């Protein structure tokens, strides 16, 4: 059977049963975030779309939705970057190379890469938002000619929280991808921008009708970033965001991730602003 068929068949017949997977690489990348490279049993590819997520199981501790941060073009494994912030993620942080865990997925709708072909891409990441966006950035790097101008704006609280530093340097060296970074609070060694991410947006030069703006970050950040992108005249359906919600099943049943009538785990986590603006009041990310 093709890998895709195996995964689809599993989803159809035993949707709650995790697949066996092994951690092949694990390392702390900041004080609070740990990076994992994971291989599914028989080394089958996850075959995800950038922006999709998996449900990670640690038996006895439960299950949690985690964004995939590698590109589907990274074959034979996939990667996660996880902040330790509760019982489950604390336990996940204790796991090391060689340990086994359970994986279900991939779930949800990813970034609309097919629609983005030929367009310029402006990526805006706030804090941990860079994690799901890394899957898109790596995908773009591996398929560079499918996209026009690409620029990345990254904001985080302090330089210590900056994720994927080595890769960031690589992105910066690559002349064909523009990269700009800002921190809320600098430390003595920081030579870059200081201030909120929204301060970077007015200065960027884009052709709005040919640009996709992709935003991931905490709700408080996107609200204001979306306003800035709208001011830049990027059309509503070309502003793309990925939303965080509590999730238990990934199958559009358990109810936790619902925004009004929409199950984020199935209809999202990636939405366009055109989708978001239709919500009547339960969407915290809707621009003010």
């Amino acid at each position, binding site marked *: 059977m093709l890998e895709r068929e195996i995964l689809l068949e599993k989803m159809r017949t035993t949707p709650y049963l995790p697949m066996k997977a092994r951690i092949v690489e694990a390392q702390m990348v900041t004080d609070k975030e740990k990076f994992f490279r994971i291989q599914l049993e028989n080394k089958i590819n996850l075959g995800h779309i950038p922006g999709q997520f998996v449900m990670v199981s640690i038996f006895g501790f439960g299950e949690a939705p985690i964004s995939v941060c590698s590109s589907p073009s990274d074959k034979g494994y996939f990667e996660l970057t996880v902040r330790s912030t509760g019982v489950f993620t604390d336990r996940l942080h204790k796991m090391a190379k060689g340990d086994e865990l359970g994986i279900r997925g991939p779930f949800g709708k990813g970034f609309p890469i097919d629609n983005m072909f030929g367009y310029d891409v402006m990526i805006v990441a706030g804090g941990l938002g860079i994690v799901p966006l890394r899957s898109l950035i790596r995908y773009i790097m591996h398929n560079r000619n499918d996209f026009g101008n690409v620029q990345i704006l990254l904001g985080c609280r302090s330089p210590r929280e900056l994720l994927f530093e080595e890769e960031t340097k690589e992105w910066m060296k690559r002349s064909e991808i523009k990269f700009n970074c800002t921190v809320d609070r600098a430390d003595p060694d920081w030579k870059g921008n200081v201030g909120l991410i929204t301060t970077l947006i007015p200065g960027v030069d884009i052709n709005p009708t040919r640009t996709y703006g992709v935003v991931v970050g905490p709700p408080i950040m996107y609200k204001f970033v979306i306003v800035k992108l709208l001011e830049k005249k990027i059309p509503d359906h070309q502003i793309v965001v990925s939303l965080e919600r509590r999730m238990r099943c990934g199958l559009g049943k358990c109810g*936790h991730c619902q925004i009004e009538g929409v199950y984020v785990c199935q209809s999202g986590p990636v939405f366009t602003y055109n989708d978001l603006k239709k919500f009547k009041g339960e969407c915290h990310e809707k621009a003010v």
Partner: protein
Amino acid sequence: MKYASLKKANLNDWLGHLKKKAKLYAPRKKENLFIFRQVKEVEDVCLEYIPTILPPKKYYFPQKEKLFKFSSQPFKTAKAIDKFEEFILFGVHTCDIAGIQCLDVVFRDAPEDPNYLNRKDKMTIIGIECLKYCDKYANCTSMGNHIPRGGYDLMMVDLGEKFIIHINSEKGEKLVTGLDYIKEATEAEMSLLERAREAKKKIFKEEFIGPLPKVYDTFDKSFASAVWKDVGRRCVACGNCTAVCPTCYCFDTQDDLELSLDKGVRYRIWNSCQMDDFAKVAGGEDFRKGRDNRQKHRYYRKFKYPVDKFNRYFCTGCGRCTRTCMADISLIETVNSLLSEEGLQ
């Protein structure tokens, strides 16, 4: 045979017969209320009952249900339920049958839920039609669930001396054939049924002050209504309303470990959108703050969202949420308040 008749004097014989065919669940008295329970003694079955504390949901969507067995060292998973057993739900009201249809729609929607569908496959439903209101809390007429609308194998109607039984499926037919005390209904009996249905029309009146499509339109406009503030102020967030609702299906998952801390079972358990951590993520952000918003969500999940998604109202009119509410929040009053805000009297 389309309609059969059974003398009341033979009801217990039939119950005894059904009990031998499969696990039989039926309503019985519990203190001053009623519950569905497996039938041990046929005499305990009580067909004149107001909606049971919990709907029969507990049999096809159990409160705590095994998903799979696991061991973590080495990593292994295994089926938790080898075989699903045949069972008969006896004496189910039409509102609760509507509840079963709602959950069918939810769990058949792709991706399908095999746990639910496996149980549902083994279920036989024998309903009983209500000829009078259970109490003042029901809104089954507005929801159109006071009369049978399919979704059952057999449907009984109490005609005094006898039950007339509508046979709606092959599975149902097998349970009434070959028994000398169940006969094909005569024309005289059929006209008695007609008369009972006519009499019902005088008893059952729409409980909402507007027709159902108007209720939907009103919900479309009432997201910012002050009614929700009022409901939220009274709500104590106990979650009773969602636990007793035949169409609430939100759940959580839970791992139970054996003492070895190595082997265990993953369960799914009922959860309630009325709990304050229901939409909270690990980082601390709460995406549905306030009892008013959580109550509003519950109502919208009955009168708006499922209509958009499945073309079906998810309130069955059983009245359980009102009956069980510790703060006297009434579904009929809430919906009527919204309707009157929209100018209906």
